[in-house]
């Protein structure tokens, strides 16, 4: 549940569709952008969109990263055949942007627009209100001309109307007549559809019509239920270079099917320390403490299970983590460490959620022994005594050393204990 970037293709498509409604048909767009992915049939694409063959085009990757021009990933003023070749060359190839390396798989195609005017407009949702930024000096790097940017703030309790007077003071009357309804309509679109960030840099005017060149949008995913039929994409794209691993994707698919919360991020599959922590806050605190005690490099995963998952769900979650953990021995020859941690639950039945984990531990008993696993448990909450007792028993049963603690011990004390830092024991 958070702010999510969306593809330029989706942002433009929905914007083009909705803007006539928000401007009393004063602003309209004729041609929808197209998205090419690894499965796109290019012949069919040109068949369905005859304009591709009649117009000059722009092609660029559409994978939630900026500065595409500087990275040589934008092809301007090309024919469809040139666009096709460009895509063919880049599709599936890896690219490095800043520190992130990822695979190029999505491309946007739209008409090329020769222009001279370049305007900048951005709208951002913030705690104190919606900030609207406008400049007549739009273009690649707005930061370098930030003193030309004018700003208006619309407070959270104000009517969602944009007063463009102070923004458009420098704009000649002819252009202002076109830009004013555009900005007003764009703000309504922004405020009505759970958008948290919407930037066009630049837009221009050709033959008295507004034309959009680059667009960036982020939406609030908790608001999507209010936008059925508006934001009509199936899922949010992963940020560039962050395609999930097989296991991460599997846990994500489990998470989407349940009311509970199941999260998994693999940080270092070669690491020694593995965690299985209940609760969003506790999972952060466990990861923090491992890092703060100087073992961040050995932290293998981050994740959480919470919101009262079923026994089956916890079993599948634990199985996934254990399978990864027991794949091979640690390169140092030292045994691996599994932390089954958590705070004191408010109302989750601890014994019940442990049942799934215990079942997974039993399934992996041989493998756990092979990687020299030691297990440390700390948890509290409803029925925790029964849960901890079950954990103690499974340790004996499968012959894996296990240490089990309840709320009498500080939540993170199992970490220094496991890492042999100090043995603070029970306070």
């Amino acid at each position, binding site marked *: 549940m*958070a702010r999510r970037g969306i593809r330029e293709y989706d942002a433009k498509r929905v914007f083009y569709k909705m803007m006539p409604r928000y401007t009393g048909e004063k602003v309209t767009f004729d041609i929808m952008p197209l998205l090419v992915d690894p499965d796109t049939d290019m012949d069919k694409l040109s068949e369905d969109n005859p304009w591709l063959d009649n117009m000059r085009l722009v092609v660029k990757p559409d994978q939630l990263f900026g500065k595409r021009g500087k990275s040589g990933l934008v092809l301007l003023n090309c024919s469809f055949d040139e666009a096709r070749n460009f895509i063919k060359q880049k599709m599936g190839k890896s690219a490095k942007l800043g520190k992130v390396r990822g695979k190029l798989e999505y491309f946007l195609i739209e008409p090329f627009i020769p222009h001279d005017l370049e305007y900048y407009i951005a709208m951002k949702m913030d705690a104190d209100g919606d900030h609207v930024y406008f400049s007549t000096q739009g273009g690649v790097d707005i930061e370098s001309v930030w003193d030309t940017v004018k700003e208006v703030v619309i407070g959270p309790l104000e009517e969602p109307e944009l007063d463009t007077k102070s923004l458009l003071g420098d704009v000649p009357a002819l252009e202002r007549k076109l830009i004013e309804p555009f900005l007003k309509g764009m703000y309504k679109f922004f405020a009505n559809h759970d958008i948290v960030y919407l930037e066009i840099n630049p837009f221009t005017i050709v033959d008295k019509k507004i034309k959009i060149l680059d667009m960036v949008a982020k939406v609030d995913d908790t608001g999507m239920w209010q936008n059925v039929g508006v934001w009509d994409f199936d899922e949010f794209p992963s940020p560039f270079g962050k395609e999930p691993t097989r296991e991460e994707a599997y846990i994500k698919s489990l998470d989407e099917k349940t009311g509970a919360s199941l999260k998994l*991020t693999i940080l270092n599959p070669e690491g020694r320390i593995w965690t299985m922590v209940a609760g969003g*806050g506790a999972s*952060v605190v466990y990861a*923090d403490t491992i890092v703060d005690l100087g073992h961040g490099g050995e932290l293998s995963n981050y994740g959480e299970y919470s919101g009262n998952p079923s026994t089956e769900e916890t079993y599948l979650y634990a199985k996934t983590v254990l399978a990864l953990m027991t794949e091979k021995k640690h390169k140092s020859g030292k045994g691996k460490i599994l932390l089954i941690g958590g705070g004191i639950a*408010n109302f989750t039945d601890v014994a019940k959620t442990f049942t799934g984990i215990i079942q997974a531990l039993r399934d992996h008993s041989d493998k756990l022994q092979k990687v020299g696993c030691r297990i440390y448990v700390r948890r509290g909450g409803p*029925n925790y005594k029964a849960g901890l007792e079950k954990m103690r028993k499974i340790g004996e049963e499968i012959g894996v050393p296990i240490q089990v603690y309840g709320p009498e011990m500080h*939540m993170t004390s199992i*970490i220094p204990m496991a890492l042999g830092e100090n043995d603070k024991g029970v306070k």
Partner: protein
Amino acid sequence: MEPYLLFSNKTRSIIFNMQVKAVQRMLDFDYLCGRETPSVAGLVNPGSSGTHKAHWGTGEILIPIYPNIEEALKGNSDVDTMVNFASFRSSYASTKEALEHKNIRVVAVIAEGIPERKARELSHLAKKLGKIIIGPATVGAIGAGAFKVGNSGGTLDNIQNQKLYRRGSIGLVTKSGGLLNEMFNIICHNTDGIFEGVAIGGDKYPGSSLIDHLLRYEQNPKIKMMVALGELGGDEEYRVVAAMKKGLLTKPLVFWVMGTCSKVFPEGAQFGHAGAKAGVATETADAKNKALKKAGAIVPDSFDTLGDEIARTFIKLRDEGKIVPVQEPESLPVIPMDYADAIKRGVIRKPTSFISQVADDRGDEVSYAGYPISEIVHSGGKLGDVIGLLWFGRKFPKWASEFIELAIMIVADHGPAVSGAHNAIIASRAGKDLVSCLASGLLTIGPRFGGAIDGCAKHMKNGYYKGLEPRAFVKDMKAQNIKIPGIGHRVKSLENPDGRVTLMIEYARNNFPKTDILDYALGVQDVTTQKKSNLILNVDGTIGVLMVDMLTNVGFFSKEEVDRIVELGYLNGIFVLGRSIGLIGHALDQKRLNQRLYRHPWEDILYMVERKE
């Protein structure tokens, strides 16, 4: 109440949505604290009203249920707090309505996933109106010894262990609702306990922020020290830093910002909470911890030593004589364990009041005598098999199940003139509902109507096992002045046999392993038809004797068991079940035809009413 207090032990609330478990936990807390009045004055269950029964210590109380917030507040002028359990879809409207009501001071919003724009509006609205929102996306808050929001503080054991039933000297505020209990635990282990603890929730735009609560704690003379748990992302912690620099926060403040692990994570990772994402360097946990430390907060090196720092700070205050020793209550009221909880833990037992060997609805799927319904259907099971399982607890062989079905089909109806159908028709015409019509028809079944199946089975079986020759049996019955049930038909005779009887006999001869009782009954028929040709074994009689033959030869009942089955009225059950089909038909037929109330004509009644002196 002082404006710096969130709750007192007089605070009364309404609960939006029927969260009865949370309500019970609130009431148990109240009782433990020795509150005079329950903290829950009413429940709002949109669109309906009534009362909800809840435990109050060892007794029970009724809590009114209201159809909307307005009604709930109209009826309870002392309520100033609402705990809102509405979903993420409807929380906005109900929270707004409550905030705008003059009596409401505090709204706790539990739902997770309220759209940012709506949450932001609520937060600003609350500030404008001078009210406090706790949440969204939180478990709530606790005023120790005073008031508990919903599920905050967890179970009763926990509340006792963490001494939340009386006030300590510490004010706590945390972003994480999940760690609220853990923080209570840490504080309880290392100090004299909580005065007030609030989880503001991990949303990007919480209704109230860390600084709002810390400023309240600063004003509260009973709070001697503050503990806060922040998180990476956003700038709330810097507002605390700014307040410290301005001298607005002077009490010792132990602070930890979660998320120091983000540096080993891929860029821009999103943690569990919506607000937990560091966009710029200042939003990282490390930067915030550093800034807080610089501003004078007590910041441990890691969460692991948070408890130690809290203890050290508290001991220092105590040594300086700033802590007023807490008056521990001499004894705490005992709250009985919940029955369901006690059963689950295996600490009590009680003899059961009912036994059932028929069906079990506790698993994933209802099972009939141990067979899940889907298994019965998949294996081609029919109505006869279901009767076998539900009535006899046995899986009957095909020939037996089919015979049961045959019998049901044959007894299903006998026209509108017989007493059962007639009654059903009269009831239907009187405008009665279907169940009444059916019952009215069924109530005629007894010794004179439909009872022959049972009777015939019983007598023929007895005759056969006593070894009485059919002739002797007939003589014996006559001597006892019993008309043999199942013998005799109005029009049918040996020469003009009843097709239904022929059909059943044929089925039995072809499929039953043995038909001893049928053969015996036919022997009896030979005797009776010598007297009068319509004294034949009729439909009811045939079903009766064949049911006995079926049960005897099905392979799992002894003679004694078959006797008992007949005695208990099982065979009558076949008639009742089958005839219900016909009775329903007649009742519905009358309704479909829109037949008026029936009144019997006077001329058809012989009135012989005399006045006797």
